[in-house]
């Protein structure tokens, strides 16, 4: 059995930052593994530890800097990794969901996994679409926002809980091969162990360009472009209630009714 985990190195901005053109100024950014992907890696590695003969491969689309993040996944137990990058990708203005899905689809074709895990979303651009878009391109079954997974590898079925709005969960059986987008909280991601970090330095990390995947620069064409970046003005408004506890509670109730938070 093979599990492919898509991981992304995301940019996190400091509390105070400046915008430079179409992006946040590089000086205010720090890079880290996308939080959701940490859970996806953990889920895959746990399955590998509990099962026989499970290979976990992670794939990322990103520059050399992203290798630090990928090595962390290797240190946590991923067997090998693929990083997709080349000059064309480097010079692209932005990679939209469709582009990423096409690139990852080429990797899926090459690797032929039984399961693909992605994070529900990335905490930088927050499209929340790459996993399901990938399922569409490779024509696999899929389940989004999975917060519980019970895998029947022999039967080829994933019994999943999907988190819906308002605290409701959907229980679904999904046939493999499938793409599951993993929600935070599904497990408790481990720390990379010191032994793991040591061993990760010797695990294979393959760099592939678009050409290696049978693609070319046309995959970068996109109908979506970023036109502007701005920081919304934050407004604040303070109401101070005065009086005894009962009076204050009454004033708060009036306000909530007024704002339409509660009815009646």
């Amino acid at each position, binding site marked *: 059995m093979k599990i492919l985990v898509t991981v992304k190195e995301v940019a996190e901005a400091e509390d105070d930052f400046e915008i430079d053109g179409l992006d946040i100024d590089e000086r205010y950014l720090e890079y880290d593994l996308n939080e959701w992907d940490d859970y996806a890696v953990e889920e895959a590695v746990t399955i590998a530890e509990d099962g026989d003969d499970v290979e976990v491969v992670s794939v990322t689309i990103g520059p050399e800097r992203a290798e*630090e993040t990928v090595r962390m996944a290797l240190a946590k137990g991923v067997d090998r990794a693929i990083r997709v990058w080349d000059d064309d990708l480097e010079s692209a203005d932005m990679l939209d969901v469709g582009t990423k899905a096409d690139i990852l689809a080429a990797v899926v074709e090459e690797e032929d996994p039984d399961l693909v895990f992605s994070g529900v979303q990335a905490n930088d651009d927050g499209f929340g679409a790459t996993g399901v878009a990938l399922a569409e391109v490779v024509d696999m079954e899929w389940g989004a926002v999975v917060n519980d997974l019970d895998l029947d590898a022999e039967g080829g079925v994933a019994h999943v809980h999907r988190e819906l709005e308002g605290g409701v969960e959907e229980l679904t059986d999904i046939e493999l091969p499938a793409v599951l987008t993993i929600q935070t909280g599904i497990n408790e991601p481990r720390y*990379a162990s*010191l032994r793991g970090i040591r061993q990760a330095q010797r695990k294979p990390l393959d760099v592939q360009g678009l050409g290696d995947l049978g693609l070319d620069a046309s995959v970068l064409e996109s109908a979506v472009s970023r036109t502007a970046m701005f920081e919304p003005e934050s407004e604040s408004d303070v109401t101070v209630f005065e009086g005894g506890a009962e009076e204050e509670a009454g004033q708060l109730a009036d306000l909530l009714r007024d704002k339409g938070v509660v009815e009646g």
Partner: protein
Amino acid sequence: MDYQLSDEQKQIKEEVRRFAENEIAPVAQEYDVEEKFPHEVLETAAEMGLTGANIPMEYGGAGYNALETALIVEEMFAVDPGIALSITATTFGSDAIMEFGTEEQKERYLEPVAMGEAIMGAAISEPDTGSDVSSVSTTAEKDGDEWVLNGNKMWITNGSVGDFFVVMCKTDPDAEGRYNGFSQIVVESDRDGFKSEKITGKLGIRASDTAELIFDDLRVPEENLVGTRGMGFLQLMQFFDVTRTMVAAQGVGIAKGACDRALDYAKEREQFGKPIGDFQAIQHKLADIHTRTEAARQLTYKSAWSVDNSDDQLTTLASMAKEYASRVAVDAANECVQIHGGSGFVNDFDAERLYRDAKITQIYEGTTEIQKNIIARELLGKGF
């Protein structure tokens, strides 16, 4: 010369820091106030392999060398020295077993420690034996195929929580020469005749366990002897350079923790209508402690590098690093409290705890005065 850490070293630092911020920081104050040993934190630390950083891979450790181990120590001590010591000191005394132990001893003692299933310690100091290690009076007499130990050990880290200790004792009182006639013997805490009494009321590193050990006709099998009979003191001397380098790393960590907290507070706290970090008096304090911390760090890294690469400069460097880094830790923690003003005087902030914790680095593993004696001795070319 290469002043860059490798990618692997950066990853170690980053992940250890993440562990310390998530698992140690939130409970540091509680363990300090209650003066209790952090068994729960230790369990998570063991899963990450922090208890066996320097133990060879074949015995379940990560097999990291002195420089990587120093980085781990630094990151953890920057967050909380008491819990950090509780984690890093679970391997105290293991050097002797790694270097001089038999295969059987390595498997028996190193593996459980690396896995976090056992805690060990090194018992050298006694009520009347501190700086002068050669005055050890705990005895071990051979009786058939057993050693019989009698004596008291004082200030022993992990004394009341440890499973076994490498004990320095006198086996051959008639041996000639001040440094001969001592041996290192492993004593398990579940033997008859073993007693420990936890020492409470410590100024700092209060999460770390310290105890007095009492051996009363305590018997261990002869195979508990580590290395060569009569050579215990000389065996021990070999590791002082390493253990001192690690205390230097502790000092760098504490200094770094103090620097970070001082800087944060100086940016936040406002007086006279502006952040106190705008006042030159505060700026100079910050500049000074950051500069000296970086200097202590470089000295410590060089000492750690020398452990692995250059023996002949090691002894001097290790004592220089230990003495300087511990002094910088105390000074930086002092300035950190000063910058915090009244808030630095209570335990709502970490400044107060770091201030108390810093002091131990000038005392254990050879006091500041002893380090200076060693540096001077090496300079003047006198033997010990």
